C-alpha cells in the first residue's frame, strides 16, 4: 500500500500508546461536542447572522452592523439595560442576604428540619410562569388578596395597582423573584455551613467569641468562596431572567420593568424586527459572557478567593 493510501483508521491503530489514548478521548467526546454544536454553537451562529440582517417577516436584506448601531443609539436599549442592572443587582443581594439568613436559621433548627427545608424550597420548585400567574392574581388591584389583607389591616386605604405603577411594578417583580430565587441560594449556603468544621466554632468559643464574632470570623471566611461563586452564578441567571417579568408585566407599565430579555421579545414579536431583536440577544450574550469569565476565573484552582 502506498503511503498516501494509508487510511485514518490505520494511522489511529498504529499510533503510539499515549497518542492513541488521546485520540480515543476525542472519539469519546465527539458525540457530546456534536450535540453542543447542534444545540448551542449553531443557534448562536444563527442568531449572530440574523443580527446582520434587516428582517421583516419572510423578507430580509443584509445590513452588516447597522442593527448594532441602531440598537446602541436607541434610548430604549439603554433604559432596558438600566432596568436589567437594577433588577439584577437588587435581586442578587436580596437572594444572598435572605438565603444566608435562612440557611443559618435552618442550620440551627433541631425540630421539623426536613419539613422546614421542603417548605422553604417550595417556591423554587414551582415553575416560574405558574408562580408568576399566581402572583398576578394575588396582586390584582380590585380582587387581589394582598390588597384585601393590607386594607383589612388598615395599612392602605385605597386599592394599590401593584403592577400598574412603575416603581411598585418593579418592586413587585423583584419581590416575586426574591421569593422564588432565595431557596436556591439558601440550599447552597446550607451545604456550605454544614461543611464548616465544628472545632473552629469550639475554638472561637473558648477564645470568648460571641455569636456575632463567630459569624464574622468563622462562618463568613469559610463561606467566602461559596458566596462569591453563588452570587456570580445567580447574577448570570438573573440578568437573563424573562419568564416572571414577561408573565407579570410584559415589561410595563411604561417600560418600567422591561429588562433586556423582555425588550428582545417585544422587539421581535411586537415590533416585528427580528434583526434588531437578535442584536439585543448578542449584546446580552456579551454581558453574560463577561460575568461568566469572572465565574470561570474564580473557579480556577489556586484562585486567591478560595476559602472553603
Amino acid at each position, binding site marked *: 500500500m502506498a503511503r498516501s493510501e494509508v487510511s485514518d483508521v490505520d494511522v489511529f491503530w498504529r499510533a503510539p500508546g499515549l497518542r492513541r489514548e488521546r485520540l480515543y478521548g476525542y472519539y469519546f467526546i465527539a458525540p457530546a461536542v456534536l450535540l453542543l454544536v447542534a444545540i448551542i454553537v449553531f443557534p448562536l451562529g444563527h442568531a449572530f447572522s440574523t443580527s446582520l440582517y434587516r428582517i421583516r417577516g419572510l423578507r430580509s436584506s443584509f445590513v452588516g452592523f447597522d442593527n448594532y448601531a441602531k440598537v446602541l443609539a436607541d434610548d430604549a436599549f439603554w433604559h432596558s439595560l438600566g432596568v436589567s442592572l437594577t433588577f439584577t443587582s437588587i435581586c442578587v443581594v436580596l437572594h444572598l442576604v435572605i438565603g444566608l439568613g435562612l440557611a443559618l436559621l435552618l442550620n440551627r433548627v433541631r425540630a421539623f428540619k426536613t419539613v422546614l427545608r421542603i417548605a422553604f424550597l417550595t417556591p423554587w420548585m414551582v415553575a416560574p410562569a405558574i408562580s408568576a400567574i399566581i402572583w398576578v392574581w394575588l396582586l390584582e388591584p*380590585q380582587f387581589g388578596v394582598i390588597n384585601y389583607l393590607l386594607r383589612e389591616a388598615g395599612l392602605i386605604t385605597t386599592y394599590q*395597582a401593584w403592577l400598574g405603577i412603575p416603581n411598585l411594578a418593579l418592586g413587585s417583580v423583584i419581590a416575586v423573584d426574591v421569593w422564588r430565587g432565595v431557596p436556591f441560594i439558601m440550599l447552597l449556603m446550607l451545604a456550605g455551613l454544614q461543611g464548616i468544621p465544628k472545632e473552629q466554632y469550639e475554638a472561637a468559643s473558648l477564645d470568648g467569641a460571641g455569636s456575632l464574632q463567630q459569624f464574622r470570623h468563622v462562618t463568613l471566611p469559610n463561606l467566602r468562596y461559596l458566596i462569591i461563586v453563588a452570587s456570580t452564578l445567580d447574577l448570570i441567571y438573573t440578568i437573563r431572567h424573562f419568564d416572571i417579568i414577561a408573565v407579570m408585566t410584559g415589561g410595563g407599565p411604561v417600560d418600567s420593568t422591561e429588562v433586556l430579555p423582555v425588550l428582545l421579545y417585544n422587539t421581535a414579536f*411586537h415590533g*416585528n424586527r427580528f434583526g434588531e431583536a437578535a442584536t439585543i440577544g448578542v449584546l446580552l450574550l456579551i454581558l453574560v459572557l463577561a460575568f461568566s469569565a469572572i465565574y470561570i476565573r474564580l473557579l480556577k484552582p489556586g484562585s486567591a478567593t478560595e476559602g472553603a
Partner: protein
Amino acid sequence: MRTTLTLLAGALMGATGLTAAAQEPVTLQWQTANLTEEQFQPIMEQLLAEFQEANPNIRIEPIPVARKDHWTKFVTAAQAREAPCIVSVQVPTAAYNGYLMPLDEFYRGEPEAWQNAWSDEVLAAAQFEDELYGLPSWGGIYGEVYNSDLVEKAGLDANDPPKNWNEYLEWAKALTTEEQWATVVIGGPTDTTTRILLTWIWSNGGEAFNEDMTEATFASDPKSLEAIKFYLALATEEGVAAPGATTINYLEQTNLFAQQKIATMRNAYWGVAKVVIDNPALEGNVFVTAPPAQVENAPTVATLTADSISSNCEHPEEAWEFVKFSNEPKWALLRAQVANWMPLRNDLAELPEVQADPMLKEFLEIGRTARTYPLPHPAWAEISQDDVVKAVQEALLEPERTDEIFQKLDKDVTAKLNDY
C-alpha cells in the same frame, strides 16, 4: 413466470398505494385567538363534526392557544414555514410579512351571488396592497354596555341613556358608589387599549391618523387630544373608573362587569356573552347603546376577523373549502347567537333570527357608522399593542404631561408608519 408475478405484485402495490393515497385524509391545522374561549366551544365542535362529515378527506386539527400567545405562536411557526394552514391574524401585518397567501383567485372563482355576500368595505379591511388575504368572518362592534340593575339602583332611566359626554359623566358619577365604579379606563398591555381610545377619539370627530396612514395625529388634531383627555380623566380626575387602569385589559374589564363592580363597559357583543357566562344572573339584565358622542353619526370601532390561509400551506384548496364552509350563513348566524360574534356577511341582517335578537339588532344598528379595525398598516400590530398603550399608561400616571406624551407618540408613530 417470475416476471409476471413481479408485475402483478407491483400492480397490486401500486393500486393499494393509490387507494391509500386517495383515502388518506389531508390534515389542516386551524389556529385563531378564540378556539379556547368557552362561548365558542359548542360551535367549534359542531362545525368540525359537520365539516368532517361533508368532507371526509379533509381533517381539521384545531390548535388551542391562549389569546395573548396567539400572535407569538403564529409568527414563530410562520418564520419556520410551519404555520397552521388556516389562521385568523392581523391581516396587514401578516400579509406584509409574507405569512399569508393571497385569496383573490379562490374568491373570484366562486359564484357571483356568493361573492356579493361581502360588501366592498368589509372586503377592503381584509386586503393589503389591493390583494385579498382573508375572508371576513366575524366582527365586533363596540358599544356602551350597561348593567340594567345597577342603572336602576342609581335612579337612572335606562330608556334615556347618555348621548353625549356630559350626560355620560353625569351617569358615571351616579353609578359610582362605595361598592362599585361606573366603568374602567383600559390601559393594559393589549390592543384593546387602542380600540377603546379610538372609539373616544372618533366620538369627538377627531382623527388619530391622516387618511393615507403616513402621519399620526393623536396630539396634533385638537379634537383627538380633547377626547383623550376627557377619557383618561375618568380615571385620573373624576374618580369614576376602577383603580389600576394601567393593568386593565378585556379580561379584567369583563371580570369587573360580571362581578357587578362596574356598571358600564365599552365592549363588543362578545363581551356580553362572556359576562353572562361568568355571571348567569346578568342574563337579560344588560343593555347596549351607541357610545356617547359629541358629533352626529360618530363612528365606533368594528373589529374584523378574517379567515386566512398561510403562505406555507401545502393544501390551499382544501383550506379554502374549510374557510368557505365555516362562513356559510348557518355558522355565521350560530356564532352571532351563541358566541355573540357579529356576522360580516351582508345577507344575514334581515334574517328573522337576527331580527328576533334585540341586542344583536342594536349592535348592528350601532355598526352602521362603524369603521373597520385593525387599521391598514403593516406596523399596526406594534403601534396598537406597544406605542399607543405606552402613551396611555404614561398619561394615566402623569396626566399633566398628556400633551407632551401624545406629541411624542405622534412623532414616534409617524416615523414607524414611514419605515415600511
